[in-house]
């Protein structure tokens, strides 16, 4: 069998086996416990019954995730450039960035709500806080690990600091930036969901997926809860796919990570 076919057949088989085991386990459970593990069929039905609410919640979560992610990319990039310019600045700020990263978001979420208000604003800020760190760390790493020989070359040309940054350090750091972006892309929907879960609000827009999860949980609508989780997975997948596409677009011409092995 060709390897291309195997790549389709193998995961499909795994999926079929998991679903079969899932049904098996469901019916193996005592009847009064079966609500704990709804079948894929029940989850699909929950999608149908709650489609509007889930779609609206998904849109709200996407909005918060996109805003927080975009803000993190922008601020993270600019801060990384600032950090890369001086080891003194790095030494002064790095410990506090670490502290910011260690701070449990769930704990400070209620305070954030007081600061910026519940709903989209809080969700955006929480997503930003979660995405921001890997972006800053990776991009800074890229900006300060420019090839010594190339730095020497620019010195030879008597290039200005600005020219060196624009024409050498930033392009050389792009692969690192995209690594940070990829990590942040997997975190963004989760961040938005957590944000929504802890600081969401049904005011105005009706809340996001996190808020929807709270509602379903309180109503003991477990199939709908699973459906909410599935939507979040899809969202995460779409985010990652978008960043991978962006990364390919920016790097495939020249970066070794896109080197084709059959060339």
């Amino acid at each position: 069998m060709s390897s291309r076919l195997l790549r389709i057949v193998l995961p499909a088989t795994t999926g079929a086996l998991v679903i079969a085991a899932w049904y098996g386990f469901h019916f193996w459970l005592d009847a009064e416990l079966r609500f704990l593990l709804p079948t894929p069929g029940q989850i699909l039905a929950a999608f149908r019954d709650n489609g509007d609410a889930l779609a609206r919640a998904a849109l709200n979560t996407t909005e918060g995730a996109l805003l927080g992610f975009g803000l993190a990319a922008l601020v993270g990039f600019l801060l990384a450039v600032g950090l890369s310019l001086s080891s003194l600045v790095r030494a002064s700020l790095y410990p506090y960035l670490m502290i910011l990263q260690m701070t449990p978001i769930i704990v400070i979420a209620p305070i954030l709500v007081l600061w910026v208000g519940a709903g989209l604003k809080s969700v955006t800020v929480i997503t930003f806080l979660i995405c921001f760190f890997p972006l800053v760390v990776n991009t800074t790493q890229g900006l300060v690990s420019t090839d010594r020989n190339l730095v020497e070359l620019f010195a030879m040309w008597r290039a200005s600091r600005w020219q060196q940054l624009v024409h050498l350090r930033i392009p050389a750091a792009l692969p690192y930036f995209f690594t940070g972006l990829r990590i942040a892309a997997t975190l963004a929907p989760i961040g938005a969901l957590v944000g929504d879960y802890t600081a969401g609000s049904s005011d105005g827009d009706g809340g996001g997926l996190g808020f929807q999860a709270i509602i379903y949980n309180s109503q003991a609508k477990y199939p709908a809860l699973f459906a909410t989780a599935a939507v979040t997975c899809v969202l995460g997948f779409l985010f990652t796919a978008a960043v991978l596409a962006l990364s390919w677009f920016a790097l495939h011409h020249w970066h070794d990570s896109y080197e084709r092995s059959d060339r």
Partner: protein
Amino acid sequence: MSASPIVEFREVTKRFGDGPLVLDRINLAARPGEFISLIGPSGCGKSTLLRLVAGLSPISSGALTVGGLTPDAAAAELAFVFQEPTLLPWLTVARNVELAPRLRGSSAAARAATSQRVLDLVRLGDRAGAYPRQLSGGQKMRVSIARALALAPKILLLDEPFGALDEMTREHLNEELLAIHASAAWTAFFVTHSVAEAVFLSNRILVMSANPGRIHTEIRVDLPAARTAETRLSRAYHDLVADVSRLLRSVEIAAA
């Protein structure tokens, strides 16, 4: 020749910080258009000597002039070719060649004309749109040389540019480099570990000794000016390679 030297070292010494002497009382005058090779054991300071001319590092004492100026003031007259091709992987061949002129504010039209001309010189005119990773090691080095030539330098500093290439490619590039040198007027300082390469390319070979770095012996290469692959078969060439090799070995044994 009575032309005033384009590069002149007078009693130049170099040490890094409080470290040992790297270069000791270097005296050297290079005529415009001359091709000078520097050869010697590792640690003899030949790369440091190039870096002094390039103004990448200051001299410790003595006097060094480049075109009558200090090395730093003469930076625009120089181009450097490193051992690695040091191409920017995210730029095409043409854009790599055009980068330095672009940083110096040259117009797009002038840059394009220059890059086409120098890429034709190194026989890569048809690869202008390629990315460095699509090129072989020898081709990358050709681009690196083209990039240096695009600056229309009066002095070309080459630090073991062909050290990483196979013998065949190296010999081809030696011939091409000489042909380009014959058609232009730059002065070359060429650091190498290969005696054969030094003899083939140079008007003058400076054999250096280490600890501290000194010019041990200066050898004039009186082979005909127009050198080709045939030159390597001549008696004169072989005698010179043998002489320089013997000399180099004695310097290396003394250093060890």
